[in-house]
């Protein structure tokens, strides 16, 4: 494409103006406000607020449950993507479309219905609770909700990669004597790994920020069922802005680190492509 100076198309100034206006008003200004307020705190103040016992318990639940949920999604998402791309079975197109359901369903509804499903008289809870598996109002429930909201990520990042795999590469491995499992481990899996990790990181990032679905299915008790976003909410209700901001900054920093990791992963993924 020609550089801006040589582009005959009109409207650059107008559209750039509109873009920058909205970006500043909706995104940059609020960020700036949060940064300014954070800078108003001394380091020890910030550290104290960000690392209270209750906050530490909330981080543990948030990161722990998010990690388990993301790992679950990496495993089952890979399996699901494989099955959807490689096999033909009745209902394949329907399931393929349904994978985006967690993106489309408001998180509040997801939390509501999952809490109900896993409660003692829910469809799944009535079998699981007697076995001692309590999904509702427990950390397990938090993990289940986070698995739900992160479900599409691995599947959707992996599907195009699987579709783009050359069947010839697998066939050549077979002609060289490799069995199916060996071919998967040494030829297919390495090509999928960057996409799986990207999807995993995206699901993890999403789970850490998630609020809506979790408040329905968690006990929300301090030290027990409180996720970090919920604790921010509690701080706000107590008008403890500084406390809320300190927690928010921790979450933000973590999100940005993950964002960078995701970008690096995507670069890595394109490394082997020509």
């Amino acid at each position, binding site marked *: 494409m020609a550089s801006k100076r040589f582009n005959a198309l009109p409207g650059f100034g107008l559209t750039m103006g509109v873009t920058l206006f909205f970006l500043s008003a909706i995104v940059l200004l609020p960020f700036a406000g949060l940064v300014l307020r954070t800078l108003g705190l001394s380091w020890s103040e910030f550290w104290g607020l960000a690392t209270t016992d209750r906050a530490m318990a909330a981080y543990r639940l948030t990161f722990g449950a998010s990690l388990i949920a993301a790992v679950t999604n990496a495993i089952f998402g890979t399996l699901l993507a494989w099955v959807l791309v490689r096999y033909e079975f009745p209902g394949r197109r329907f399931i393929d479309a349904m994978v985006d359901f967690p993106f489309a369903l408001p998180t509040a509804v997801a939390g509501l219905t999952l809490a109900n499903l896993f409660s003692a008289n829910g469809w799944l809870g009535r079998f699981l609770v007697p076995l001692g598996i309590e999904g509702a109002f427990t950390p397990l429930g938090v993990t289940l909700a986070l698995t739900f909201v992160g479900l599409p990520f691995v599947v959707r990042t992996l599907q195009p990669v699987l579709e783009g795999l050359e069947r010839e*590469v697998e066939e050549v*491995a077979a*002609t*060289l004597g490799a069995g199916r499992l060996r071919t998967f481990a040494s030829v297919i899996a390495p090509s999928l790994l960057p996409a799986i990790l990207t999807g995993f990181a995206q699901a993890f990032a999403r789970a850490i920020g998630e609020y809506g679905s979790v408040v329905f299915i968690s006990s929300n008790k301090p030290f027990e069922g409180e996720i970090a976003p919920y604790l921010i909410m509690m701080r706000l209700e107590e008008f403890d802005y500084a406390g809320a901001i300190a927690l928010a900054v921790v979450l933000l920093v973590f999100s940005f680190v993950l964002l960078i990791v995701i970008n690096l992963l995507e670069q890595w993924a394109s490394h082997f492509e020509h």
Partner: protein
Amino acid sequence: MSIELRNVTKQFGQVAAVSNVSFSVNEGELMALLGPSGGGKTTVLRMIAGLEVPTTGDIFIRGQRVNDLSVQERNIGFVFQNYALFKNMTVFKNIAFGLKIKKWKRADIKDRVHELLQLFGLEGLEKRYPHQLSGGQRQRVAIARALASKPSVLLLDEPFGAVDAKIRQELREWLVTLHHDLNVTTIFVTHDQEEALEVSNRIVIFSRGHLEQVGTPREVYETPANEFVARFIGVMNVLDAEVKGGVARVGELQFPAPGRRDGSKVRIGFRPYAVQISTDLTLYPYRAVLRHTFFLGIMLRLELELASGLILRSRMTKEEYAQLGLEDDREVSLQIRNFRILSSDTSALSPEQEVQHLMPPTIGEHI
């Protein structure tokens, strides 16, 4: 006998990609499977490899029936058109892959890979990844990988399809040399007649799933089994004639056709070099006008129009042309030295235009 196919048929649903094909390949031979795209030649190659299963018929490798052997058990080397290198592995690991699977000792693997790197002119590239290689290097890695564990046969699918014209010629010569040095039975698929004629010991010609002819390059060029082969290998004049009194007639041309019924239709075929021309209008029996001269390197192709409107193609060298003092629109006399009455049983499927567009105009002129 290295490889033998007996009555092999492959159906994909209702469509027969390969029908009732039988041929054999001798130990150490360099064999071309030639035909237009969709002719079934790649399917045959894949069946030999075990990547496809014949619907009916048997395949033998070194006397052993391999229908029930999986790809892994057949000990073949296969090179795909796009090479299918393992992107996540270095050149060394690509070549070593099959050896590791076969549980070779580390030291043996190292020796064998280095031997191949040397043989293929790939020394110093062993730590590179496929995306850091040129097209020609990738192909050599693919062939080295296929040959690493000393397969009983090397199978190549359109080996020169993915490289540009300039390198293609080098690669052909290199493949011939390689085959000469290693003496491994090699079968390659191509749609390029010239390539098949130049590189192989023998050629199997396919069209629409049928085997049309098996023979040496010379045999298929000089004595094509039918019209399809005649037209596919090189340029041929083909005329529809009607028999009357033991003579096939088309326009003013007459060809002896003893033993043919009066009124029966035959097709007459002859190569351009069979058409002899003279500027002495009384020397040869037929009169024609030279309509166009095409310059094809040292060879020229001439398009001649007979009084009846029939168009014939002839060819000669520049020197002959100059000697005769020919030029466009010059009247000449001509004769047809030898011709064949084509058996057209299998070539009902191949209307003239379709065959012609598959055939680069220069093909045959080099021979």
